[in-house]
C-alpha cells in the first residue's frame, strides 16, 4: 500500500504564525524560537498545564493536539496527548490545541474531569490537568472499547476498553493511582453532541511551513524533504527536530540553544509506511505511536518492545528516526531493530544509501551518518524470524530507561536454531549484536544445555559499566539470564512480563 500523504496546497509561509487553542486564535508574538509550548501556553494565561520536570517524564504539561488519524486524506483526526514542555511553541503554528481549561469549567465539567473530581483522583491537583488531558485522549480514541479486557500485548485495559498505558507518562505523587484508574475505567463513550469527538471526524490541520525568527534563533518548518536538505545546506549548524523529545530535554535541562531549528516531523517523505514483499519500510518521522498502530502486531518483536518504550506521551512525539539519530547506547529500538536486521536509509542532496543498522553505530553517540545526511526511513526485511522476544531490564515497568535491553529473533527448525540474531542495549558504548552468542546457538538444538552454554557466552558480551541505573555486575548477570528466561518461556503460554 502506497501511503505517502499527498501534500496539499498550503500558502507558502503563512505571514502571521497562529495556533488555535481551546477554539481561540493565539499568536506567537512574545516568544523566541526556543520557547516551549508550555511556557507559551502559560503566558497566554492558560496556567493549567504545569512544569513538573521539564523533560517529558511527569506529564504535568500534557495537552491535546489534533493529529492525523491515519495515512490517507479522509482519515480524520485524533486528539493526541503530548508533553508541551518538550516541543517548540512555534511548531504549533497552524495546529489545534486543547488544554484542561478547554475541556470544561468548574461549573460544566467534562466527563473525564467529573470522574477525576468525584472519585478522589486529585489531591494536590498539580498533576491533574495533565492527567485529564492524557485521559481525554484515550477517552476519544475511536477504537476504544473494541479490545477485550486484557487488550492484548502491551495493553492493560479496563472494562470500557480504556488502556492504562495511556497514562504511563503521567506521574502522581499523592494518590497512589487507584482513584485515577477508577475514573478512567468509569468513562463511557463521548456524547453525540461532543464537539471534540465531532472534530475527530474531520481532517487534522496540515503542517504549515513556518519561519519564526527572533534574536534567539530561527524555527523553520520545511514543506518537503527537498526544502529540508536545502535549508540544511544553507545552515550547516542547523538542528533537525522531529518529536523534540530529546531536543526539548537538551534545551530545558542542559540549556542548549540552537541558532537554527528545522522541524521535520511532518515532512511527507519521512513519513512513509510500506509493507512490501521483501521489507517493511517505516518512515523516520513516524512517531512510535503511529508505528505501533499501523503495524498492528505485524512485527511481534516491535509489538512487544514499543509499549515498553518510554510512555504514551513520549511515543506520541518521539520518532523512530529520532531514536536512532541520537545514537544513544541505551535506546530501546536499536536492540530490537538489530535483531530484526534493519537497514537505515540515509538521504542527502546526492541521493539515498542504505546501511545495515549493525554497521550504523561507530562509537558513543557516533554513527556513519554524514553531516549532510538524515535518516529517511528504516527497512525491516521479511520474512521475520518466528521466535522473538524483547527483554527490558529497568527499575520501573512504565516509562523507564533500560539498564539492559535485549532483542531476540530466532528461527528454530525441528528443534535446531537455524538463525539467531540478538541485539543488546546498555552494555557497550553503542547498541551491539551479540555475535558470539549467535554463533553459539546457530546450528545447535535449542536445548537447556545448549542454551546454558550460550548464556555463559552472552554473559561476557559487551563491556557493561556501573552507573546509577545498575551495576556492571548486574548488567552482565542480566545478559547471562536473558537466554535462560527466553528458553524457559519458549513453548509455554506467554505470561505477562514481570518488570525488569
Amino acid at each position, binding site marked *: 500500500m502506497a501511503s505517502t500523504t499527498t501534500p496539499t496546497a498550503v500558502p507558502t509561509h503563512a505571514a502571521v504564525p497562529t495556533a488555535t487553542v481551546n477554539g481561540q486564535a493565539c499568536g506567537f508574538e512574545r516568544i523566541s524560537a526556543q520557547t516551549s509550548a508550555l511556557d507559551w501556553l502559560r503566558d497566554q494565561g492558560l496556567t493549567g498545564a504545569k512544569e513538573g520536570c521539564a523533560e517529558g517524564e511527569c506529564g504535568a504539561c500534557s495537552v491535546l493536539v489534533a493529529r492525523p488519524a491515519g495515512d490517507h486524506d479522509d482519515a480524520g483526526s485524533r486528539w493526541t496527548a503530548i508533553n508541551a514542555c518538550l516541543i517548540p511553541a512555534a511548531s504549533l503554528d497552524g495546529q489545534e490545541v486543547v488544554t484542561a481549561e478547554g*475541556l470544561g469549567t468548574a461549573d460544566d465539567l467534562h466527563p473525564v474531569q467529573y470522574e477525576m473530581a468525584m472519585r478522589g*483522583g486529585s489531591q494536590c491537583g*498539580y498533576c491533574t490537568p495533565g492527567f485529564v488531558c492524557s485521559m481525554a485522549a484515550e477517552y476519544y480514541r475511536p477504537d476504544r472499547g473494541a479490545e477485550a479486557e486484557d487488550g492484548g500485548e502491551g495493553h492493560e485495559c479496563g472494562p470500557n476498553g480504556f488502556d492504562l498505558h495511556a497514562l504511563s507518562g503521567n*506521574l502522581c505523587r499523592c494518590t*497512589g493511582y487507584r482513584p485515577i484508574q477508577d475514573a478512567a475505567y468509569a468513562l463511557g463513550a463521548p456524547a453525540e453532541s461532543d464537539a471534540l469527538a465531532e472534530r475527530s471526524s474531520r481532517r487534522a490541520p496540515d503542517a504549515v511551513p513556518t519561519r519564526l525568527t527572533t534574536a534567539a534563533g530561527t524555527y523553520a518548518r520545511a514543506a518537503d524533504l527537498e526544502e529540508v536538505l536545502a535549508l540544511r545546506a544553507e545552515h550547516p549548524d542547523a538542528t533537525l527536530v522531529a518529536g523534540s523529545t530529546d531536543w526539548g530535554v537538551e534545551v530545558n535541562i542542559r540549556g542548549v540553544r540552537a541558532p537554527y531549528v528545522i522541524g521535520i516531523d511532518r515532512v511527507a517523505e519521512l513519513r512513509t509506511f510500506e509493507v512490501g514483499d521483501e521489507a517493511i519500510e517505516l518512515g523516520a518521522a513516524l512517531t512510535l505511536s503511529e508505528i505501533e498502530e499501523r503495524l498492528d502486531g505485524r512485527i511481534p518483536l516491535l509489538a512487544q518492545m514499543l509499549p515498553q518504550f518510554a510512555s504514551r506521551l513520549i511515543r506520541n512525539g518521539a520518532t523512530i528516526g529520532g531514536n536512532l539519530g541520537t545514537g544513544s547506547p541505551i535506546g530501546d529500538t536499536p536492540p530490537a531493530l538489530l535483531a530484526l536486521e534493519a537497514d537505515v536509509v540515509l538521504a542527502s542532496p546526492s541521493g539515498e544509501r542504505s546501511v545495515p543498522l549493525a554497521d550504523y553505530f561507530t562509537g558513543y553517540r557516533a554513527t556513519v551518518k554524514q553531516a549532510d545526511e538524515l535518516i529517511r526511513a528504516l527497512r525491516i526485511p521479511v520474512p521475520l524470524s518466528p521466535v522473538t522476544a524483547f527483554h527490558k531490564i529497568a527499575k520501573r515497568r*512504565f516509562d523507564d530507561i533500560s539498564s539492559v535491553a535485549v532483542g531476540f529473533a530466532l528461527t528454530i527448525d525441528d528443534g535446531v536454531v537455524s538463525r539467531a540474531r540478538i541485539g543488546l542495549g546498555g552494555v557497550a558504548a553503542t547498541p551491539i549484536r551479540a555475535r558470539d552468542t549467535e554463533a553459539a546457538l546457530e546450528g545447535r538444538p535449542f536445548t537447556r544445555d545448549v542454551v546454558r552454554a550460550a548464556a555463559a557466552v552472552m554473559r561476557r558480551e559487551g563491556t557493561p559499566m556501573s552507573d546509577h541505573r545498575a551495576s556492571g555486575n548486574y548488567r552482565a548477570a542480566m545478559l547471562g539470564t536473558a537466554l535462560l528466561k527466553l528458553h524457559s518461556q519458549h513453548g509455554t503460554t506467554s505470561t505477562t512480563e514481570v*518488570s525488569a
Partner: protein
Amino acid sequence: MSHLSERPVNPVVGQQIPHESAALHVTGAALYTDDLVLRTRDVLHAWPVQAPHTHATVTGLRTAPALTVPGVVRVLTADDVPGANDAGVKHDEPLFPSEVMYHGHAVAWVLGETLEAARLGAAMVEVDYDVLPALVTLTEAIEAKSFQGAQPHMERGDIEAAFEGAAHVFSGEFEFAGQEHFYLETHCALAHVDESGQVFAQSSTQHPSETQEIIAHVLGRSSNEVTVQCLRMGGGFGGKEMQPHGLAAIASLGAVLTGRPVRLRLNRTQDITMTGKRHGFHAQWRAGFDEQGLLQALDATLTADGGWSLDLSEPVLARALCHIDNAYFIPNVRVNGRIARTNKTSQTAFRGFGGPQGMLVIEDILGRCAPLLGAPAHELRRKNFYAEGQSTPYGMPVRHAERLTAAWDAVLSKGDVADRQAQVAEFNRGHEHTKRAIAITPVKFGISFNLTAFNQAGALVHVYKDGSVLINHGGTEMGQGLHTKMLQVAATSLGVPLSRVRLAPTRTDKVPNTSATAASSGADLNGGAIKNACEQIRERLAQVAAGRLGVHPNEVVFDGGVVRGLSASGEHIDWDDLVVQSYFQRVQLWAAGYYRTEGLHWDSASMQGTPFKYFAYGVAVSEVEVDGFTGGYRTLRVDIVHDVGDSLSPLVDLGQIEGGFVQGAGWLTLEDLRWDETDGPNRGRLATQAASTYKLPSFSEMPEEFNVSLLEHAHEDGAVYGGKAVGEPPLMLAFSVREALRQAAAAFGPTGTSVDLASPATPEAVYWAVESARSEAAAMHRTTAEGGTGAVPEQPGASAHPMHPRSERVVGHPVPVDGPAAPSASPEGSRQAAGVRP
C-alpha cells in the same frame, strides 16, 4: 465521649465528599504560587549560582560580568543582606555561604527581566573556590566521627542482663537510603513590597509562620512587617516544612532591594540538587529473643545522614528512636542516636519524620531473624505485639493496643490470607523461576509533635450578616485534604450546610504563630481551633435563639442551617435570620479560636514522657511475585485495614492511606538516590537529579488489586470529632511489600533461608537477594550473626550531648548552651547567630 470528640446530630464531618478544590484541580483553574506570576506586573526572575564543588571555600566572587548580560538587573550576595545572613532556624545555614557545603550549593542569586536573562547572568558570575576534602557517604562520616547536634539516648530495663539471659541473640548492621520528596510542584516564592510597605511573600510553604520569621530575620525587620501567604501547594510531604524559608527570603530580599516583585521558582534540577530529602540511616543492632521468640532486648545505634546542616535532623532522629519499637513490646531497650554531617543537601522532614526509619530497623530485624528462629515472619510479628497495659521504651502507655490485633484479625479475614498463603506455597512448588510471597506488617505511629509547644493552633471564623461563613486557620493545604476537613468541621460546629462555608488561603496576618502543617497533626490541631471559634459564636447565637424559641440556651440545636429547640417539631429559626437578628442585638459574629493538645509531656534530654496524644494503628498484607531471572517483581495484591478513628472525611482518608502506602513502597523498593561516591571530579554530585533518573512510582507500581478499609469501632476520644491523624502512618504499611520481597527471594533457597535485602529493594537488589538465597554460600554473605551476647553497637563518645528540651527548633532564639552548642557551618555562621535579633 469527650466534648472534643462528640459529634452533633447530622454532622457534616464523616460525609464522603471530594476534595474542596477538586473541580478547580481538574479544570486547571486551581492556582499555585507560580501561576500568580502572570497576574503580577514587572516581575523579576531569580536564578541561583550553584557551586560545582562538594566542599570548598569561596575565595572570590565577581558579579560584574553578569551585569553585562542584557536583562540582568542585579546579583544578590552576602553583602546585600540587611539583617542576618542566616536561613536556618538552627543558625547553621548561611543564606549566602562563604563555604560551599554540598554540590550545587547556591552562593549567589541573579535577578533578571526574564528567566533566560537570569540564567545566562548566573553563568557569568565568577566565583573562585578553594576545594576541600568532602565526606559523601554515611560510612565515611561515621569513620571520620563527623557528627552534628545532639546524640539522644533512650534506655529501659537491664540490657546486659537481658542479653545474658536471652535464648537467641542476633546482631547485624544495615544501611538504608533516604528519599526525594518529588512533590510535583517545585519550590516557589513570589515576593513584593506592598502598598503599605510590608513585605508580602507568597510561598509554597508548609510553615508560613516560620517562613515569615526567616524573612524578617534576613531583612532585619519585625514579624509584623512581613506577611506570608500560601494558596496551596502541589505536594509537600515534609519537603516544604523548612526548605522554603531561605528561598522566600531570597525573593523578599530581591523585592526590597529592587522595588520590584521577585519570583523564585526552582526548576526540577535545582530543586532536587539544592533541597533536603528523607534521611538515609545506618543501624547497628543486636536483638535477644526467648525460646518462644518473644523479644527480650534490643540494643541499637542509629546514625542519620543529616547532610550539611542540622535542619530538622534532631527531631527526626528523636522520632526514629521513639518508633524503633513499632508495634512490639521490648522489655529491655537501649537505643543511641547520632547525626552524621556529610557534604550533601541538608536532609529534612519527610512524611513519617524519622518514624519510618526507626520502624524499618525493627522490621528488618524481625524479617531477618524469623527464619533463623524457625518461625514464619508473620507469627513472630504477631506474638510480639503490645498488649494493653504495656508501655513504650520512652514510658508511654500504649492505649488501645487491642486495635492492633483487631486490625490484624480484620485484614487477615478480609484478605482471605490463610487460603492465599496455601495458594502461594502451591504456586512456589510449581514454579522454579518465579516465586510469590505474602507478608503482613503492622504500624503503630505516635501522633503529636514530639516538642510539646508545637501542639497548638489558631483559627479565625467570621460569620457575615448574610449568614455566610468565612474560615481561616493556621494549616496549609498540600493535597492532604486539610481544608476539606476544616470546612466540614466548621459546618458541623455551626450546624450549617457545607455550601455556606468558605475557606480563605492561609496567611500569617490572619492567624499568627502557627505550627508547621506537619506531624499528621493538621486536622487535629486546626480542627480543634476552628471548633473552638465556631462554638464561641454558636454559644452567643444560642442565647439569642433561646429567647426567640423560649428554650434554655443549652437546648438550642443548630442543624443544617436551621436553629430549633431539642424537640424537632417545635418552632425554628433559619440560620440567616438568626445571624442578622444577632447582629442587630450587637452580638459578636466572629471569633478567634485556639486549641492546644492536652496531656502531653516530653523530656527530650532523658527521652521519656508522653509525647503523643494517641497512636494510629494499621496492618497491611502484601503479595508479590519475583522473577528469578531478573529480580523484577510485581505487587499482586495489597489489603489494608487502617485506624483513622471516626473518619472526618472518608474519601480524603482513603486517599491518604493509598497514597501514603504507594509513596512508602516507592521509598522501599524503587526510589534510588545515588550520589557520586567515586574520587572523580564529580564526587558528591547527585547522580539521580531528574525524573528520568530518579524514578518514583508510576501506574505500573500500583498494586494490581488494592483493598483498603477503615478500622471499625475506632472512635478517638482525644481528637476533634473522634477522628485520627492519617497523613503519615499509612506510609509505613509499605513495609509489607519489602518483607514480601524478602520472603519471595528466600523462597528461591532452602526452607529457613534468611535473606538480607538492600533498601531500596530495586530489581537489582532483589536479584542479589535471590542469588544469595540460591547460593549454598548464602550464609557467608549474611551480616546477621548469631551467638553470645551479640556485637555491641558503637556507644556514644565523650563529646556526645543529649537533646536539649527545646532543641527541636525555635527561631530567633539560639539554644541556651548547657551542652556543647550546635556547631556552625562556618565561623561567619556563628557570628551571625550571635547577631540574631531578640
